[in-house]
């Protein structure tokens, strides 16, 4: 939340992108409205093919938008090439120059900007230290590991001190352990440099742990923009809720509604408070979908709680256990309980009751 108070770095208004012409035309981006604040760690999240890379390429200047406007640091940049924008990219495949050493790769941007050799050398050394690659400065990209190439790509993009760093799934080629390490390294680098990061991923967990704010995309549109907390706990649409984390959907009837919340009737007849997304005002009697996160329900004795269910099976995950249930009425429901203490595992086939945490219910649009 802190960063949204900073002045805007990138302002995108009604931006669209169409590839091709005539019958082969394909609309990859529609009506993108987005403001990214200075120093923010902003993530574009969405399934494959939703237009994340295209949006990043439009910001970088590799593609020109078909309509709408794009401002960087207050200046309209439409029509300017990538070499005239204070923006650098960390490419998904790193795109390191194979004929240059690690140090030459990192110094390339400054060299092209015509900086003095002494300044280039000093910055290269600084960057090598920043990404802990000083000992491999003279190697060629083919002679270092994938994780090391990743760090060089990062250093190369940071060396010219851009206002904005664009990262297109920079961690997707790394194995899990390296990936976790690089995630915190990226956060550290962003904190140390204060540069605005626009980060692309289709990994929702990565997005939640790293971002100041997230934009969830689908089919060339931005569905919702918000902090990880907002996106997780207050998804506006079914797609967003489904894409982020494990989710239970439940059909309920609205009993009464005011501005931000509604009393809804659960399948068993019990009443519960549900939050409403901005812009959605269902009338009494309307049937709506609510989202319940698996960790916000708890098992209680049969007949108690607000929902009744039958246990199907339990799956052990180490720190927690997922209990798969079927609610009375046939809706499947997954519940997550932490494995602290020795809770008895519910036997398959047994009937149980469920209580829901306060604020567990979030109404979503379809």
């Amino acid at each position, binding site marked *: 939340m802190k960063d949204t108070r900073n002045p805007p770095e990138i302002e995108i208004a009604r931006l669209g992108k169409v590839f091709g012409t005539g019958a082969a035309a394909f609309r990859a981006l529609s009506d993108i409205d987005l403001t990214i604040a200075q120093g923010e760690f902003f993530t574009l999240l969405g399934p494959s093919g939703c237009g994340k890379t295209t949006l990043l390429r439009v910001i970088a*200047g590799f593609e020109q938008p078909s309509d709408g406007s794009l401002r960087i640091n207050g200046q309209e940049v439409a029509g300017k090439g*990538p*070499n005239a924008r204070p923006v*650098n*990219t960390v490419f998904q495949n790193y*795109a390191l*120059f194979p004929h240059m050493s690690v140090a030459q790769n990192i110094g390339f941007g400054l060299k*092209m900007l015509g900086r003095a050799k002494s300044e280039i050398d000093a910055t290269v050394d600084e960057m090598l230290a920043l990404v802990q690659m000083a000992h491999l400065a003279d190697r060629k990209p083919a002679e270092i590991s994938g994780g090391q190439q990743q760090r060089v790509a990062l250093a190369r993009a940071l060396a010219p001190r851009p206002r904005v760093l664009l990262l297109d799934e920079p961690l997707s080629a790394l194995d899990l352990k390296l990936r976790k390490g690089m995630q915190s390294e990226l956060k550290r680098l962003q904190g140390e440099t204060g540069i605005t990061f626009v980060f692309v991923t289709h990994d929702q967990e990565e997005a939640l742990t790293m971002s100041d704010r997230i934009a969830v995309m689908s089919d060339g549109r931005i569905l919702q923009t918000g902090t990880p907390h907002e996106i997780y706990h207050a998804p506006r649409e079914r797609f967003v809720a489904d894409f982020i984390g494990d989710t239970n959907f439940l059909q309920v009837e609205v009993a009464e509604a005011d501005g931000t919340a509604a009393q809804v009737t659960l399948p068993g007849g019990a009443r519960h408070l549900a939050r409403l997304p901005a812009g959605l005002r269902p009338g009494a009697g309307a049937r709506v979908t609510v989202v319940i996160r698996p960790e916000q329900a708890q098992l209680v004795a049969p007949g108690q709680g607000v929902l009744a269910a039958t246990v199907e099976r339990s799956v052990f995950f180490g720190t927690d256990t997922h209990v798969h249930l079927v609610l009375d009425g046939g809706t499947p429901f997954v519940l997550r309980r932490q494995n602290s203490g020795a809770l008895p595992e519910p036997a398959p086939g047994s009937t149980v009751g469920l209580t829901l945490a306060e604020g567990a219910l979030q109404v979503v649009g379809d």
Partner: protein
Amino acid sequence: MAEPRESHRWKWLLCAPALTILVLAASGPLLIVLVYSFLTPGNMGGVVWQFSTDGWFRVFFRRDIFSPEDVSWNTAHLTIFWRSIWLSLQTTVICAVLGFPTAWFIATRPANTRTVWLFLITIPFWTNLLIRTFAIQELIRNSGTINTLLLWAGVIDAPIQMLFSEFAILIGMAYVFLPLMVLPLYAAMDKLDFRLVEAGYDLYASRLQVLRHVILPLVKPGFIAGSILVFIPSIGAYVTPRVLGGGRTMMLGNLIDLQFGQGRNWPLGAALAITLLVIVVAALLFYLRTLNREEGGRHG
């Protein structure tokens, strides 16, 4: 224990046909040429089996007819050597300069149309070299297409003498050998990762800087292969200088032909042929060594 030995023998047996062809087709004739260069010319051509270094002597020197002890450089031959080297170098440079944008154009077409463009590049190979060379002659001779057009348009009042000059040879050789530069250059560009070009632009390089710092170093292997493929046949070119250079603007190939034909001096012809070979090998070694040194210097 016996097995590796056995398979070793098989290897040699399998290589035998290739080795035989190599010995018979390459080393054999070369050896004959080398031996002939140290023999005495026969009266009606051919050789007399008598050792002589006169052929080699005449490659570089000449004796005054009236006072044989007067020895001077054979400037006619040296001029031809120099012309061959110089024209071949120019041909290579022209082919590189024209070939690069051509190959770039093809490499940046959509994948499905690239084969068409490549096919077009190879079309000249379908016609006999001699006929194509005569076609160029028709274009540039005094009453040929270009001069006629220029006269008609009033740009000039007298035809420009283009045929039978080094210029004509240069045009002909550049035309004939251009595909040999385009094809390896295209192969190198086809492998080029265009995301590296984007990375160059992203890091503030101008178009020219991307060309110089990213594209050229990466397609260098194509330039090397293309240069070798153009330079070697250029320096031994025969048909093109013969048709476009006339009798006086000779290159090495024509000089060698002259000795085996009208000149009736086979040993001299053989010595000249070996000289040509030495020039080519020396040029290649020099070229590759310069490249290596450059490479070493950059990381050193």
